[in-house]
């Protein structure tokens, strides 16, 4: 504990940070989520509007991306909870290379396939949904059995008390060093737990709630989410939350030692630096 009692001070130490299971399932998950997101946007584009309840209230969507006429001009308008936002060229209406217009929800660059093809979008989506489910079950089973979930991801009460301090440190871009860097900090633990145990399972459950087959066998799926169209809206919102997590996660990886972080998620080896040992 006390640095002064150490016989020799090391400047750094290499630890084995991530197990093989974590590394493999992490990267499989990255691929799955990327394909699921892009093919999901292709599917969304087939009817770029969201509703609440069992059925679609076409005249009153909670969110929609569509073209609207104003005078002689056509705009791409994104409507969210009654607010209209001009998103011409990005959402609702795309400009083509020839100078014309094309009605679409999300733009070419973020859908799979890039051109409009609902059938192929569904093929990509459901294939990778299966890979995602098998991979996720493998991860969760291993995490429970090996103690990874309890040991590495569950925050202690003491950590939760200091969550305010941890947020302040992160905002100042000060990251744990030395012994503290050997474990996930409390914000990491909480965000990984929320993604792995809440958001990703929620994606699966709301996805299944959109299946007319599953709804017949398991009608509680409809009750839990407040109807099929609500489930579709929650599916979209949860996917957006995962995209937000992804952005923050990648920024954190980049600014807290990108090569060290990437190496540890590929080979498992992570370098711990001891700042106080430096001359």
């Amino acid at each position: 504990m006390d640095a002064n009692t150490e016989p020799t001070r090391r400047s750094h130490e290499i630890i084995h940070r991530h197990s093989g299971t974590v590394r493999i399932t992490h990267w499989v998950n990255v691929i799955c989520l990327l394909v699921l997101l892009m093919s999901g946007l292709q599917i969304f584009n087939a009817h770029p509007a969201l509703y609440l309840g069992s059925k679609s209230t076409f005249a009153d969507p909670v969110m929609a991306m569509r073209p609207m006429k104003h005078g002689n001009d056509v705009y791409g308008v994104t409507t969210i909870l009654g607010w209209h936002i001009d998103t011409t060229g990005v959402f609702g209406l795309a400009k083509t290379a020839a100078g014309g217009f094309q009605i679409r929800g999300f733009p070419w660059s973020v859908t799979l396939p890039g051109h409009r093809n609902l059938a192929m979008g569904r093929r990509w989506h459901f294939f990778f949904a299966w890979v995602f489910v098998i991979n996720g079950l493998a991860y969760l089973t291993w995490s429970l059995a090996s103690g990874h979930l309890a040991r590495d991801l569950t925050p202690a009460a003491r950590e939760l008390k200091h969550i305010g301090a941890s947020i302040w440190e992160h905002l100042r871009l000060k990251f744990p060093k030395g012994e503290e860097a050997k474990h996930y900090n409390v914000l990491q633990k909480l965000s990984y737990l929320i993604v792995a145990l809440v958001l990703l399972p929620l994606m699966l459950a709301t996805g299944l709630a959109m299946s007319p087959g599953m709804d017949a066998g398991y009608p509680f799926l409809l009750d839990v989410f407040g109807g099929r169209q609500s489930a579709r809206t929650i599916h979209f919102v949860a996917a957006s939350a995962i995209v937000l997590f992804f952005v923050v996660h990648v920024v954190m990886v980049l600014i807290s030692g990108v090569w060290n972080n990437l190496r540890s998620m590929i080979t498992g080896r992570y370098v711990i630096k001891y700042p106080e040992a430096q001359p």
Partner: protein
Amino acid sequence: MSTRSRLDRRGFLARGLAMAGASLLGGCDSELSDQPWVQRVLASAESLTRVAQRALIPAKALAREYSEAEISKDFKANGSTSVDDDDYRALAANGFADWKLKVDGLVARPLELTLAELRAMPSRTQITRHDCVEGWSCIGKWTGVPLKALLDKAELKSSARYIVFYCADDIAATGDDDGKYYESIGLIDAFHPQTILAYDMNGAALPIAHGAPLRLRVERQLGYKMAKYVMRIEAVDELATIRGGMGGFWEDRGYEWYAGI
């Protein structure tokens, strides 16, 4: 058996990874989506979904039925909303009084039934949710003949495995017969209590936009399975020899035959 399925699962994961890697490296997903081998691999998930849903969902589990108050006032008519054909127009002009539904193929007693004869058969009324493959849902009230009643009357042969529905609408509008809509379902869905041939919608005769005089309802699958303008029903033992060979108009164009999700 269990080793085999574990290997299959691993192979499935490996193929998925190889494909995703190729898509990222290529950065050219549209071209990748055009590759026949990619389409074949991706399509393999459909059998997994079908087998899983058949195992997880009891064969007689009913789709949820809703109250009158929940019926959509703006039920969307999708796909064909009319039939551009003189014969059909003549039938429609006469209230489909001269129309007859043919039931043939692998049945002991082929049938030809008028709308009045269908209406005289036992009927079922259900208020159900229609889920379009595009993502929207509408709720409607349907009254019609249970398909099971028709198949029993026609004495379905034991060699029959699929029921095919031939429609009047030429959705592709290419002018040739290949553009005509058709669909097919397996016997699990054919004998499901909610699988009906509807002649009424929301308490009135089925409108032309929704498939008059007769449309199929398969409540545990997506909208495109529910063929409109049904003219003939054929019991068959395989789908490969019919039209594009995939069991339906949209199936021939890349959509899943098992549309439970």
